């Protein structure tokens, strides 16, 4: 049976798992780890009291061409890789992607990523916090032997200043190139040094032509992105990788831009693609989702709160307002992801109320023109990371990491 090109496409785009931006704070302690020998023993004691006990919920998942599920998250300074051959019911023992422990962003919109290459290559990226707030390096490692061994991690970008390079997003294009995009503050820092105003951060990207052995020098996609929202990536029918991300327009209007990330040396252009007009000088920590149909329709979901929290669905028409705009959900709903297979479009998100979390789903069987009513697929009274939609043989699944464990929740077969 031929598989629907599944995971490499999807992981990319998706959802920040990770429940909570707010535990980012723990990273401040992680920053300190490399310098611990310099601290007196009583200082270390004070820090140990605050060390997290449980892994954070920032995880990513992907299916390979054989239908095996791969899951990455972080624990104890290691990105760990597990797999499942029974649709998530049981997970293998973990393999450590980075042999040497290092601080890892693993919550909220910032989490380890996994993508598969055309020959089953396993590509993993993450962001490493440094010793200043909001700083980081984008890290990458690969396995060419089915996850048994990983290369020593490399820093993807040439600029190693202690500034923001984080919120990495990972995808593989139709030619097997590994593409990584991230949020980068070098231009903001340069403007600040010259006493000039600069809103937000920038999006930079790079790619590898040799299965992740090396990456080309990074290039800037665009200035004035939002500082703290994940970047969604998805593959176009032509095999390029496209990005959809929150950007800043005018006076802190935080709408979204769409761009094809060109890997032929020609410049890429980001174009405004949502027109919600939400003005906020702040951190939404709430990035969008993107899935592109075989016929090229760009299915997108995003969050804004101009008139109260709202998750929107729309079909992007860069330079113009999206088509088939639909309010998917209102207050109490967050972190949506989207997937498409044939005529079916799925949107999954978290709903929270006084009782706890529900994993919600809406589906369309007419390419996004109409959606059915929301359905609760699962629930938890514990904490939950953002859902990530995955495709396997024409069926959708939601990867949902909860404090009770990783769950893969079936979301139904697509209509054909």
């Amino acid at each position, binding site marked *: 049976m031929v598989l629907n090109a599944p995971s490499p496409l999807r992981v990319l785009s998706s959802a920040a798992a990770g429940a909570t931006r707010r535990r*980012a704070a*723990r990273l401040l302690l992680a920053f300190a780890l490399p310098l611990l020998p310099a601290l007196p023993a009583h200082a270390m004691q004070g820090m140990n009291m605050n060390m997290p006990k449980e892994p954070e919920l920032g995880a990513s998942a992907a299916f390979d061409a054989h239908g095996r599920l791969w899951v990455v998250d972080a624990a104890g300074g290691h990105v760990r890789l597990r797999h499942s051959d029974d649709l998530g019911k049981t997970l293998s023992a973990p393999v450590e992607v980075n042999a040497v422990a290092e601080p890892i962003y693993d919550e909220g919109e910032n989490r380890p990523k996994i993508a598969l290459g055309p020959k089953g290559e396993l590509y993993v990226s993450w962001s490493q916090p440094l010793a200043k707030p909001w700083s980081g390096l984008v890290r990458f490692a690969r396995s060419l032997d089915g996850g048994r061994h990983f290369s020593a991690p490399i820093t993807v970008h040439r600029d190693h200043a202690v500034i923001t390079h984080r919120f990495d997003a990972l995808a593989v294009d139709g030619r097997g190139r590994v593409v990584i995009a991230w949020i980068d503050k070098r231009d903001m820092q340069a403007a600040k040094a010259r006493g000039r105003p600069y809103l937000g951060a920038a999006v930079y990207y790079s790619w590898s032509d040799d299965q992740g052995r090396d990456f080309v020098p990074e290039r800037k996609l665009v200035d004035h992105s939002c500082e703290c929202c994940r970047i969604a990536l998805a593959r176009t029918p032509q095999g390029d990788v496209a990005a959809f991300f929150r950007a800043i327009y005018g006076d802190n209007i935080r709408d979204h831009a769409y761009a094809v990330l060109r890997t032929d040396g020609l410049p890429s252009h980001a174009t405004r693609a949502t027109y919600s007009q939400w003005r906020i000088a*702040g*951190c939404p920590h709430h990035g969008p989702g993107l899935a592109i149909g075989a016929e090229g329709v760009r299915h997108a979901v995003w969050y804004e*709160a101009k008139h109260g929290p709202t998750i929107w669905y729309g079909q992007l028409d860069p330079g113009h307002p999206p088509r088939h705009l639909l309010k998917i959900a209102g207050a109490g709903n967050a972190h949506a992801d989207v997937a498409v297979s044939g005529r079916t479009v799925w949107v999954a998100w978290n709903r*929270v109320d006084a009782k706890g979390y529900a994993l919600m789903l809406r589906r369309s069987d007419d390419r996004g023109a109409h959606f059915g009513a929301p359905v609760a697929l699962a629930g938890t009274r514990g*904490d939950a990371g953002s859902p990530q939609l995955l495709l396997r043989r024409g069926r959708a699944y939601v990867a949902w990491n909860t404090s009770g464990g990783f769950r893969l929740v079936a979301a139904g077969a697509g209509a054909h």
Partner: protein
Amino acid sequence: MRRARLAALLALALPACVHAASLTALSAADVPALLKPPARGERIIALWALDCAYCEANLRALAGLQHAHPGEIELVPVATDDIAQRDALEQRLQQAGVAGYPARAYAEATPDRLDYLIDPRWGGETPRTLVIRADGTRLGISGALSAAGLRKLQP
């Protein structure tokens, strides 16, 4: 540079170095009391997060407003980060010049649920300013407050 970093780490690591007012835990059970209208004037709940680059300035601006109306405004900074990060939170409160206020920090296994209980019209973006007035009315504003936004908060 390295010395500065070490000093910062020590400040972070040693509770004795930080003399903020009491940073106390905020759990779901504490929310009704936090939201109860004050006897007079208004309570400003300043929701902030360590990972929010806009929050320190917003806290400072709200403290300025409170100073101008000391009898009418009660300012309560509430960190949406877990109180396990007490040291880093207290350090940041001090940097923002609001260490003297009765600050709270989340102590809740499901922080999004706490967001919802505090303000169901809030999607978790920070900074978020929630005003509870003595007459029971509320006002919620997301993002760092402009001068015009601050004026709206005046009692």
